[in-house]
């Protein structure tokens, strides 16, 4: 759908601007720059949301990887929050996952569409992946005060994996249905469980584990 491409392209450009502003603000902190960065983040989020809604309209089952990536980028965009970090790249790191996801959706060659899971399941998985990407941005910026994306991702992923396993047990008598992608989903959940169990007194180790877990999840959801 060409309109989706237009919105994704515009969002990509605005996200790049947001990163530039964030880096600039990191070196020279002024209220005007912070305000501009907040406005640009809002604009990027709005463009992404418009593109994602259009993509979802055209592909309700989210079978095309590009649609999934765009919806994930929308969830990952750090709209409405802006912090003052001690590191100059703090705010830039928070925007990075959304930019990468939008860029891959726009320019990447992602293979054929798949329609293995239902529309609701696909949507929940994509929201999960988007929240995971958002948490990756927070972790990369070494922020310690934004825990909700982590908690929300892990809770949603636990519900998804547990729900799928219980439905399989009820319908088929086994935890595994043998559908492709099931192993990846459980793998992503185990990786988030590892990040959840990691000791909070080692923030860098925790950051590394969150990035690994988020990558597991994003790759599983996108492919």
């Amino acid at each position, binding site marked *: 759908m060409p309109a989706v491409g237009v919105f994704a392209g515009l969002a990509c450009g605005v996200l790049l601007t947001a990163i530039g502003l964030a880096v600039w603000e990191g070196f020279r902190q002024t209220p005007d720059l912070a305000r501009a960065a907040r406005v640009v983040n809002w604009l990027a989020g709005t463009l992404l949301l418009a593109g994602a809604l259009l993509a979802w309209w055209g592909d309700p089952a989210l079978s095309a990887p590009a649609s999934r990536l765009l919806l994930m980028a929308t969830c990952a965009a750090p709209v409405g929050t802006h912090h003052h970090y001690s590191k100059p790249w703090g705010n830039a790191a928070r925007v990075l996952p959304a930019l990468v996801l939008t860029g891959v959706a726009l320019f990447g060659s992602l293979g054929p569409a798949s329609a293995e899971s239902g529309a609701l399941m696909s949507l929940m998985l994509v929201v999960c992946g988007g929240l995971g990407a958002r948490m990756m941005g927070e972790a990369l910026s070494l922020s310690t005060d934004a825990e909700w994306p982590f908690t929300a991702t892990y*809770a949603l992923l636990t519900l998804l994996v547990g729900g799928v396993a219980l439905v399989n047990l009820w319908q088929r008598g086994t935890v595994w249905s043998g559908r492709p992608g099931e*192993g990846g989903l459980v793998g992503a959940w185990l990786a988030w469980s590892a990040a959840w169990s990691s000791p909070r007194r080692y923030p860098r180790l925790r950051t590394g584990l969150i990035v690994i877990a988020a990558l597991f999840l994003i790759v599983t959801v996108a492919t």
Partner: protein
Amino acid sequence: MISQAPRDPWRIIWRVVTGDGLPVILLLGLAAGLTLTAWLPQMPPGDPIAYAQWLSGAQARFGEAAATMRALGLFTITRSLAFRALLALLSGCLLLRLIESGERLRQGRKMFKPAGDWRALADASLADVLDDLQSRRYRVLSAPPLFQVDRWPWAELFPLLAHSGALLLLLGLLITHLWGWRVEGLIVQSGERVTLPDAAGWVALSKDASRVTHSPGIVTYVEQRGPGAQVSAADADGHPLSLQQAFEADPVTQLKLALTEDQYLAIPEVQLIVRLAPQSDSSVLVQVYRSPPGRLAVETVMEGDTELIVDDVTLESIAAPYAQLTATFNPGLWPTATGLVFLMVGLLGSVVWPARRFWLREEAGGARGAGNLPSALVREEA
């Protein structure tokens, strides 16, 4: 010279096993293995047809590297010794953590010594703070002038539930692996009852093909449904003619065919060949050829019961739809299901209501707190 106290190796092992590091490593190892299974097609156990399909697919996809990957065990990840060793280690680790969680729940009844630095609380009286915390379902223990605030017992109960759930789940999976079985690709036609291999049970399909019944203890899942036919032929005098599906097959007067793909049968006495081809709209294309010369004599599309007359031969076809089933016997079903529910409730409870303990006391300059204080309580340092 400073003398060093002898280090107790058991204590070190206990600390490693009940610490946070080992489960993280084990979970990451298992996560990597399972994620690889989503990328690399895994070798199907047992079924030779599925194995042949997998082998040709793997060779087409990976070429010469397939043999090396196979030798490295990349196509049998979840059945590999390393994966099972990780699961066994995780089980042991979970058991010890379960014991530790139980002990923590038991010890949580009493007050602990304050830990951490004392910090000034935000402007509010201690009585108001305690009232507010109690209304938010915190437990308050008092030994004036000290108060301990925590989330006992639920915050300690949820990890216990999660650990016991994970252990039950692993136990259920082990029982399934040891004593369970699964039959895939079982084809049953309407009104038919099929005995499972080794007389392990039976599966039947109702006459209208809408309902599957089975022997107790097994679970059946319909993978696919499709058309089928019960075919018979008679000559002009009404005498039944013999039918053959293959040259070496015994002639019969009635054939029941599940139309999973095109099916052929011969009527040797009148030299006719019949082709039955399933169509996308669940109807069946019937073509009758003369043999020789292989010329098409009649062609029709049938839905339901059909009678077809070719020369003096009457071909009768009665609809007999089929269901392709998977039958599973899982003696570990209940431990697995209970474990899954416990694990989900335990994890979600831990996420929503994590363990937190802190201490409060009234001092001359105002209330002060120590431990894992909620950020709303602490006064911002200037």
